């Protein structure tokens, strides 16, 4: 077939460029939704791995499980007395992480529905931008409500996990 020979030297992009060069490409909403879909997917998968392992503790090591989930509320217990305690920034970090997780799953789900529409509803491809806008609207409406729900308990002490024994008033209640 084609006989054209290769030049002795061509510039081939390395692995890093293959991964990053495209980010400068001015693709539209399609490209960004693809990228976010991929990143949220990978993020959720990472969380899932952790989540399965910690859930395994429920059966294997109930106490370890309880100590682990308590960390989500900013409470470290069962370790050395100098470490044990309530750390409100830790609680904030986990709460924001939780928000990120919900956002990821929600976006991944909504955008997933958009992708499925492309596959099985022939006309959808002509409305990809509209569909992306719809995904965004639904996403933000839900996320605002979720944020209120998830963040509001942060302004009071952890209520439902009195992991630490009742005694005098703590010194580390988050400031309002």
């Amino acid at each position, binding site marked *: *077939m084609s006989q*054209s*020979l290769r030049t002795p030297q061509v510039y081939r992009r390395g692995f890093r460029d293959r991964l990053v060069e495209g980010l400068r490409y001015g693709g539209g909403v399609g490209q960004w939704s693809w990228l976010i879909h991929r990143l949220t997917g990978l993020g959720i998968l990472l969380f899932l791995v952790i989540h399965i392992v910690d859930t395994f503790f429920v059966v294997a090591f109930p106490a370890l499980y309880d100590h682990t989930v308590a960390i989500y509320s900013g409470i470290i217990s069962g370790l050395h007395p100098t470490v044990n305690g309530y750390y409100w920034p830790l609680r904030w970090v986990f709460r924001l992480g939780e928000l990120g997780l919900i956002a990821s799953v929600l976006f991944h789900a909504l955008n997933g529905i958009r992708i499925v529409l492309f596959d099985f509803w022939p006309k959808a491809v002509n409305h990809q931008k509209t569909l992306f806008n719809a995904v965004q609207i639904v996403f933000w409406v839900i996320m605002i409500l979720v944020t209120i729900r998830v963040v509001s308990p942060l302004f009071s002490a952890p209520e439902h996990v009195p992991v630490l024994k009742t005694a005098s008033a703590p010194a580390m209640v988050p400031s309002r």
Partner: protein
Amino acid sequence: MNYHRFDCIIVGAGGAGMMAALESSRKVGTAVVSKLYPTRSHTGAAQGGIAAALSNLEDDSWENHAYDTIKGGDYLVDQTAAEILCKEAVDCIYELEHMGLPFDRTADGRISQRRFGGHTKPNPIYDPSATPGTDAAKPRIPVMRACHAADRTGHMILQTLYQQCIKQGVTFFDEFHMLDLIMVDGECRGIVAIEIATGQLHTFHAKSVLLATGGFGRMFKTSSNAYALTGDGPAIAYRHGLPLEDMEFYQFHPTGIYRLGILLSEACRGDGGVMFNGKGERFMDVYAPNLKDLASRDVCSRSIEQELRAGRGVNGKDYVYLDIRAETINKYKTSPTGSDVDSHWVEKRLPDIIDFARTYLGVDPIKEPMPIQPTAHYAMGGVPTDVHGRVLRDTSGEVVPGLYAAGESACVSVHGANRLGTNSLVDLIVFGRRSGKDMARYALDREFQPFPANPEAPTRMAIDSLLSRPRTEPWVKLRDEMQKTMMDDCGVYRTEERLTRARDTIAGLQVRYKNLGLQDKGTVFNTNLLEVLELGCLLDLSEATVASALARKESRGAHSREDFPNRDDTQFFGHSFATKHGDGQPTVTYKNVDVITLEKDGKTTTKYPLEIRKY
């Protein structure tokens, strides 16, 4: 090392080249050498259609087509060749369809056809005594003969041929630029080409070589031609002392996009489009009362020039309007369907044209007329060949063994002094196929002839000296001057004075060309080098064009001499052959036109009698 051997070498991968490759590669080893990827060839820019008398929508015959071709060419057409063209066109269209070409379809599933400039049939209700202007007074009426795929017919042909070449496993040397023919004892034994990506020279040893390198419209400033159309094939043949035929006939297409020269297909007018001058008058009424906007291209281009000279351009500028709005088509009753059309219909018939106007003019042709001006479009002339594509050595008709030419680079002569719209595609297919067949036949009866030692040496020297010379002036200055000269002094209208000036300018440029140096001294993809080499080809072809134009002291078809406004069949009914000898100006000689004669009742008549050409 870089030596290749094939029975047939085809230079150029446009319509003619690939059609020939499909034919010859069935029987003998064939390689296509092309400076572009095949799908970049300019065949792909052809728009409106490819004519063949299929009679799918109305009665037609190949004789009608031949009549139109001969008349369109202002009788400077070899009539046997024209008959072959029109007869075989029918067969070729079916072959293309069987290859998969997606023609538009009629309601009953057959190939759709449309009207085109200069395509006519006898008027069944013709009455010589009828009042002028009525339908019955027209001896001939437009006919739907151009088979089309929207306004991308050439694109479909090019793609289909490339697809078939892939299917057949034709060998391609993509982005190899031919630099020289290897001629030994007056016969062709191969070519020298540069592999653009590496800058290495390659030699191709062959039994037969086909030049299918396309046109050379880039010698003009405003041109519908691609940058790649620099006439490398004809120029190299010319340097080897072979003649160039009918070079003075260069077609200007009437409807190029204002300033850019991008083609707006004749199909615009075939489908009912009308041209207007600055005063809003349909000026073709005056110049071609019968066919009006569907007159032949040279007629329309001259008409536009006349309007512009008379100051009737739009807004006092040098353009007129082409109007394809549905309401205009309906108002002037120019719709080919006979009934009113709507803008949806127009959009479906001419999608690319509408896209071009929107992109390049910022004009929506559905709502506004498009500014147009004539644009250099097609070379009727080229390397002279017989009907088998074999290159002629001189006016005697002797052939050069092993050398073939087809397509725009060749002059079979089926276009004469002015090509009929759509006939370029017909030419490619019909004569591309015939060349391919004859090359295979020739290669089968012949052994490889000895190949000279180092045939690439002169080419290597030329390139080395180009690369080693200091850069005295930018090469583009030469090109710009050549294009301006050719456009102004050798354009639609010509005079002795302007042509002489053009001859001298080109000669001066030839001298300066010899001292050109390059900025890019590299070997990898040196487009600087290629552009300069291409300029050399264009300069040689300009020289031949101007010399042939100076010699022809008459007006015929696309060659309009203001100082000799009439056709002169007693002195100039012949094909010009421009041949270069050494460094001076070429000599111009003439070859008789092939005329078909009929014996009837002991009297000899011509089948296509010379008539005054009116539309």
